[in-house]
């Protein structure tokens, strides 16, 4: 799958640091993410992989380093982070659909509120996306009536409504019942095929193996190893990674 990734950089992360008081969660992360690339991030719990992902759109404020997105260092307090977030989609472990809004209104809120689309355009796009995931009859339903798998697929298309340049997935299948993991992963695979740039924090080694172009192992706040999945799983070099893989595979 490597052939489809271009040399064009979408995200460039240099020396990214995050500390809570004296506790350093991220101790300098460097990574380039190219257009169309699917990067899977794995690591033991508490290693900082979710924090890393949440720093990329500044849901967590990094305490050092830089993140270059669309030619701007978005860590700079002076940048309009809201503007950049429109182009950085995010999918959460707990779905986080807006509970007070119907599915359709969940999809329309941001693009219409931010005047990126007229209501009619947004509605047409939303219906098209709902059709794609086979949930068009749920347009007027409230999130509380949906299954976990349905919620997460709608959360994904809610992010797609913004036509993002990159999508961040924070353990998107970890809160799902096992029988619903497949439908969410299938949708993510489709996005990967369509050349969506994706950064996925995951425990799904199968997904990392099959879909990712690159797998990154974060441990102790730094990237310990990164390589193509075949090399990563077939011939791991870092001791901690070997130990980790022996536990999860």
């Amino acid at each position: 799958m490597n052939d489809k990734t271009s040399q064009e950089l979408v995200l460039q992360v240099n020396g990214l640091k995050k500390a809570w008081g004296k506790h350093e969660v991220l101790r300098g992360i460097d990574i380039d993410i190219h257009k169309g690339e699917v990067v899977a991030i794995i690591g033991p719990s508490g290693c900082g992989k979710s924090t890393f992902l949440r720093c990329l759109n500044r849901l967590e404020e990094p305490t050092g380093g830089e993140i270059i997105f669309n030619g701007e260092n978005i860590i700079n307090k002076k940048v309009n982070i809201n503007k950049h977030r429109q182009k950085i989609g995010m999918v959460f472990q707990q779905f986080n659909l807006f509970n007070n809004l119907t599915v359709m209104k969940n999809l329309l809120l941001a693009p219409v509120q931010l005047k990126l689309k007229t209501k009619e355009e947004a509605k047409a796009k939303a219906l098209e996306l709902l059709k794609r995931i086979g949930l068009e009859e749920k347009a007027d339903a409230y999130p509380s009536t949906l299954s976990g798998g349905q919620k997460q697929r709608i959360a994904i298309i809610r992010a797609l409504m913004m036509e993002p340049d990159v999508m961040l997935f924070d353990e998107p299948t970890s809160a799902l019942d096992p029988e619903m993991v497949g439908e969410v992963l299938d949708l993510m695979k489709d996005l990967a095929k369509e050349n969506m740039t994706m950064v996925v924090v995951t425990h799904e080694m199968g997904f990392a193996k099959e879909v990712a172009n690159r797998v990154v192992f974060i441990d102790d706040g730094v990237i310990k190893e990164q390589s193509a999945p075949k090399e990563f799983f077939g011939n791991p070099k870092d001791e901690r990674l070997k130990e980790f893989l022996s536990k999860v595979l």
Partner: protein
Amino acid sequence: MPFGEQLKLVFEYKELLFASLGYSMIIAFTAVIIGFVIGVICAGVKIAPKGNIIVKIFDKIVDLYITVIRGTPMLVQLFLMYSIVLVSFKYSDNNLIVPIISFGINSGAYMAEIIRSGIGSVDNGQMEAGRSLGLGWFTTMWKVVIPQAIKVVVPTIFNEIIILVKETSVVSLIALQVDGEQVYDLFGIVEKIQMLEPACYNATLVVIAVIYLVIIILLTVIQKLIERRFKKNER
């Protein structure tokens, strides 16, 4: 005097009773509105991102306000207002403003806590989802978080309103003036009628109790209607 006859006599004063009901309700509901406005502003300060020094200063002021108001009895606050803070109204022809402001300020502290905790009860993921789509803090608050908080807050707000309506009965301890004439609140009128008809004290008390009860039942009905309206939004 038999109770039935006492009642009959009390009803002869129905105009006085209605007038006192009116004053009690004016004090209670104006105070509710003031309290709600104060509560919204204070809750807004408490939940606002503590980015700059001005917000931090206001945050401390709100903390102090809530601590003082919740830490002292309503009756003491009313008398402090009447005798010290708003003393210029003490002998004025119109001093209804004193209890209105006192109860409003008192209620504001409780409303602030109710509203703040209601907003706090909405999962932070809702705000994060809004922000991750590029929506601003305020827009997400307004479109997503507050509508969910309202549902949580309605029963507690009504609880506060109900307590306030009944607590206004302590204004009977100060002399209320409207256009230079002494007027009475719903509880104060008991004493007034007792002066005019010493034999009807018991019946007056019962009548007043029933009037309070009816008002509270009406409030409860309104509460249920509002709650049902928000439930419909669920599924």
